[in-house]
């Protein structure tokens, strides 16, 4: 007998019981097992392992199932709320971006109008007005970043978003 025959036999033994083994393969396997003690031993081992494993009575308690179902429902509600808040944040961000762009454009135009009225070069006044408009926000941002004490408490933000640190890691 060749190694190839043993490999084929082991493959068929491992697959049989769960997967379909064709009739010619089943006949070949039977004849091989009659001649090969090693493969017959493996087939016997597979049958016994399956028989003993399937005889195990492991059941989930109704309390475990009920607790899991209740935990899942609560988590589903949390996730839905989290999703609603995320949508709200995304919408707020879009509105903020849009209004900032529009007001930047308006301030730029205002700078042009002032330059025209005062007969000053537009290439200086337009950016000047724009920078003056931006300056307060830039100063506040730099102050926040430079501060040794965190101005924004991340835990408060995360709590508002409905995520504890454990959840955030996952």
């Amino acid at each position: 007998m060749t190694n190839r025959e043993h490999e084929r036999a082991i493959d068929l033994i491992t697959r049989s019981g769960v997967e379909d083994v064709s009739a010619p393969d089943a006949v070949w396997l039977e004849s091989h097992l009659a001649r090969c003690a090693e493969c017959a031993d493996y087939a016997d081992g597979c049958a016994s392992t399956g028989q003993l494993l399937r005889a195990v009575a492991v059941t989930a308690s109704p309390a475990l199932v009920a607790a899991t179902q209740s935990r899942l429902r609560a988590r589903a509600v949390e996730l839905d709320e989290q999703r609603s808040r995320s949508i709200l944040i995304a919408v707020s961000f879009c509105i903020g971006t849009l209004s900032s762009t529009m007001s930047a454009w308006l301030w730029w135009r205002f700078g042009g109008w002032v330059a025209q009225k005062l007969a000053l070069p537009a290439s200086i006044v337009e950016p000047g007005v724009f920078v003056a408009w931006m300056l307060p926000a830039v100063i506040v941002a730099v102050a926040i970043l430079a501060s040794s004490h965190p101005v924004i408490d991340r835990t408060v933000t995360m709590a508002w978003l409905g995520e504890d640190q454990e959840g955030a890691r996952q």
Partner: protein
Amino acid sequence: MVATAFSLLAPMETEEAQIARGLRRRDPDLLDALIAQYQHRLLRYLLHLTGNRAVAEDLFQETWLRVLEKGHLYDGRNRFVTWLMSIAHNVAIDHLRKRSLSSLDEMKDPEDGTPFEPPASGPSPFDLAAAQQQQEKFHEALAQVAPIFREVLVLRFQEQMKLEEIAQLIRIPVSTVKTRIYRGVQALRPALKGGLQ
């Protein structure tokens, strides 16, 4: 209950497609039905994997929470049970990493020498006692088998999964699955011969 939950969905879809759609919507009735349907199989798998009932029950809940959170990733092309078991496999591995254990065997309850309950059926008290003894021997031997072999034995012989499904679940080649099953069965041979004769 499961049939009722599925029948509420579109009748022309396959069961897997219905489950995938329900999971994307986080349908609570569908999740209840799935927990009820797969409760014993999932707990049995986790119990065999960890050897500790308390840990297995924790991981059972954790697995279903992950099913809820990652449900949108299930596309319905494969059997749901395969996907569920792969989630359970990952949850068990994550648990292992968190606890920094060197092997799955370390999760065994040291006070629990016989982690599995013997079958509650037998034609006579003598047969019952013999079967119980045989089961105990077998499970003692099974507990000694390395977790990587034990896992494939459970998936193949208890959960009746195809080799390709096991390979997909554990993310290893089919040839490795066959090798692990072969080596697992060989490792159990002394107990099987002693216990069954």
